[in-house]
């Protein structure tokens, strides 16, 4: 065993990401700080989910190094790899709960595999984790009987089952209504405050970004565009980041013409109750 695994830093050095011959991202060098919430921001299809899969170790990186708390993820002995996996919790986009198992059994699965706890103790831990995400009454439900937001929360409970040092979330708020999305943000912040964890969130949700981020990495067009804190991001004058944060469209509308911006402005004023 090498390296500290209590909320470790995740250091990426010149990482390239891609499928087969296609390189999606290259030259990513950054440190996702331990014990904080790092948000990886980028447009759809920019490779941010793939980067997350690289950090998890599901997809081998094409070049570069990913070091998690002193452990080089590419060169791990099978025991160390398993040990690292045990200390990582992952929330997949749609929760990725096993459809054939009830919610309680889903959460119990990592415990049954990796611990020697008795059944009654496992049940207790499962109850605790489900209470943490507000799903204590749904132990006997199948994942298909839950709403999308509940499935994501349950996925979070499963990711937390083994009290991980690192929590990685793939678009935790996508496809959720504003209230449920805010719940999710709150939950992530609660977890950060309660447990000593490094949290990495991949998202393109701007409101979620401002709510949870300590550290931001922006990806665009195959490169890392920005790295820094939230205030630094809002002060950044890169045209893509300005456009992204202001939620401006790429194409010019031939139908709406130049008036588009004023139209949107008027609508905003109207909904804000201003004349």
């Amino acid at each position, binding site marked *: 065993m090498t390296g500290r695994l209590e909320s470790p830093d995740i250091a990426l050095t010149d990482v390239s990401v891609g499928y087969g011959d296609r390189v999606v991202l290259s030259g990513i060098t950054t440190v996702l700080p331990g014990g904080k919430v790092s948000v990886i921001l980028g447009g759809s299809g920019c490779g941010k989910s793939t980067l997350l899969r690289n950090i998890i170790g*599901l997809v081998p990186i094409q070049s570069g190094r990913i070091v998690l708390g002193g452990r080089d993820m590419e060169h791990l002995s099978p025991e160390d790899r398993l040990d690292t996996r045990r200390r990582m919790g992952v929330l997949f986009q749609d929760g*990725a709960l096993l459809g054939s198992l009830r919610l309680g059994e889903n959460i119990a*699965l990592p415990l049954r*595999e990796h611990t020697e706890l008795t059944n009654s103790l496992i049940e207790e831990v499962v109850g605790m984790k489900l209470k943490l995400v507000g799903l204590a009454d749904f132990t006997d439900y199948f994942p298909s009987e839950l709403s999308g937001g509940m499935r994501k929360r349950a996925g979070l409970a499963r990711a937390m089952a083994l009290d991980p040092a690192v929590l990685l979330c793939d678009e935790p708020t996508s496809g959720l209504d504003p209230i449920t999305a805010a719940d999710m943000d709150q939950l992530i912040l609660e977890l950060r405050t309660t447990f000593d964890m490094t949290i990495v969130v991949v998202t393109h949700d701007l409101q979620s970004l401002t709510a949870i981020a300590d550290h931001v990495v922006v990806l665009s067009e195959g490169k890392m565009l920005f790295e820094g804190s939230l205030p630094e991001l809002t002060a950044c004058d890169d045209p893509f980041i300005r456009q992204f944060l202001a939620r401006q469209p790429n194409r010019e509308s031939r139908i709406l013409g130049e008036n588009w911006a004023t139209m949107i402005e008027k609508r905003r004023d109207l909904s804000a109750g201003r004349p």
Partner: protein
Amino acid sequence: MARKQDDLGVLVGLVSGLLACARDTVNPRHRTKTYLRSRTVSHLAWVGADSLAIVSIIAACVGIILALQAAIQLEKVGAMSYVANLVGYSLVTELGPLLTCLILSGRAGAAFTAEIATMQINEEVDALTVMGIEPVRFLIWPKFVALGLMAPLLSLWADAVGITAGGVFAALALGLSGTVYFEQTAYFLTMRDVLSGLVKAAGFGVAITVVSCWQGLLAREGAADVGRRTTSAVVQSIFVMILLDLFFTALNYSFR
């Protein structure tokens, strides 16, 4: 080309994973976790018990068909009592295992592919890997054990049902004595015939599981791919089964 290589890589990973599971099962020092064992039991029940009715009906029909076909030819040479030999031999060495496993590939194999493909697309397989649970051990090994055991057992059952149905039919409709039929069957069928059929069935069961689960793991995107993978799983299983059948039969013939 790269895609083909990846596909084969998945197959190699699957087979080596299954071999590792087999090694652990034989190893007395290795203790299988109870939750994994109970998965195997539930698969055994699902594959075995739930296929019993359809296998029985088909075996009975085939037994009667064989008795009828044999009677048409044997009547011409006045050797009606040999109906029993023909029915028994073709069922036990060939049709029992083959038909049983055809049903299993359509029933269990297709279900395996669809299940694993859907799980692959929903990232459930990735989730297992991330939790440090080998997908092969958790998902595929129970299916492998279930089909590997149930294919021979169901074939044995199909043999018995088919022979009985052929006998009852011969006694009722063809005017043969039932006692003579069953005595003839017992006298001519050797243990070796039965065993060769069972070995075939076990081979088919293994082939169905490997092909079906492999195709499931290859699924990439969307519901359409689940359908496509399921179709190719059944077609490829049947193809591999027929090739294996040819191989086993030739082997059995050359060593008699």
